[in-house]
């Protein structure tokens, strides 16, 4: 098995480039969705697809600076979001309403993002080929 692509040979899926959007709606800790979701995003980078990530609802907490998980005895995986750029995953969209509702703004986040209104986020989702929510 090819470790990078998770069992897919490099020549499979060749030529087709789809718009993949990974939609993150849950807090980083408390459930495993954010962590395992991020694993899918990293794998997708090996397939030369048009990948973006959206953060809505409690999912915006995934990007908040200064996460400390020692007391929870779980891994702080927030540095991974900073590494996404190295995988050419640079389209990160955050819903404005979700930020505002939680008293946050773009300065509170670990990485540069594009803040979009709920309506604009919806329009962007409509343009995607594959939307996977975590």
């Amino acid at each position, binding site marked *: *098995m*090819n470790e990078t*692509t*998770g*069992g*897919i040979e490099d020549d*499979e*899926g060749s030529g*087709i480039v*789809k718009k*993949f959007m990974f939609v993150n709606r849950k807090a980083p800790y408390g459930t*495993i*969705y954010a962590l*395992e979701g991020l*694993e*899918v995003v990293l*794998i*997708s980078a*090996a*397939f030369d*697809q048009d990948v973006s990530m959206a953060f809505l609802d409690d999912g915006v907490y995934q990007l908040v600076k200064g996460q400390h998980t020692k007391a929870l005895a779980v891994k702080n995986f927030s540095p991974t979001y900073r590494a996404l750029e190295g995988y050419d995953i640079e389209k990160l969209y955050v819903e404005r309403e979700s930020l505002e509702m939680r008293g946050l703004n773009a300065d509170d986040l670990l990485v540069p993002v594009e803040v979009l209104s709920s309506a604009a986020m919806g329009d962007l989702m409509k343009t995607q*080929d*594959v*939307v*996977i*929510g*975590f």
Partner: protein
Amino acid sequence: MKFGIMVNEGPYTHQATDSAYQFAKATLEKGHQIYRVFFYHDGVNNATRLTEPPQDDRNVVARWSKLAEEHGIDLVVCVAAALRRGICDENLAPGFRISGLGQLVEAGIQADRLVVFGD
């Protein structure tokens, strides 16, 4: 049309896998194809052959196995998610195989629609 299906929740606790199964059946009855069913998160628990539901309840795992046998459906369990949860070749139900996350991305690329069943 060629469908990919993603199942993100385990059996019995959550309806996701029931809905996915019913969707898969309806898909085939209407003459469409299923490119692959991919099990992720607690969805990997749909692949254990050790499950023994009461007689008067549906057998979620056996139902997937039967669908795979009758229609040649590719049932793929994510290896990382599976190992975390104690799903391995030794307790894998018939018709399932364990592979990497690339199989999910590939399903997204190859299928006309990827339908996600989860929380």
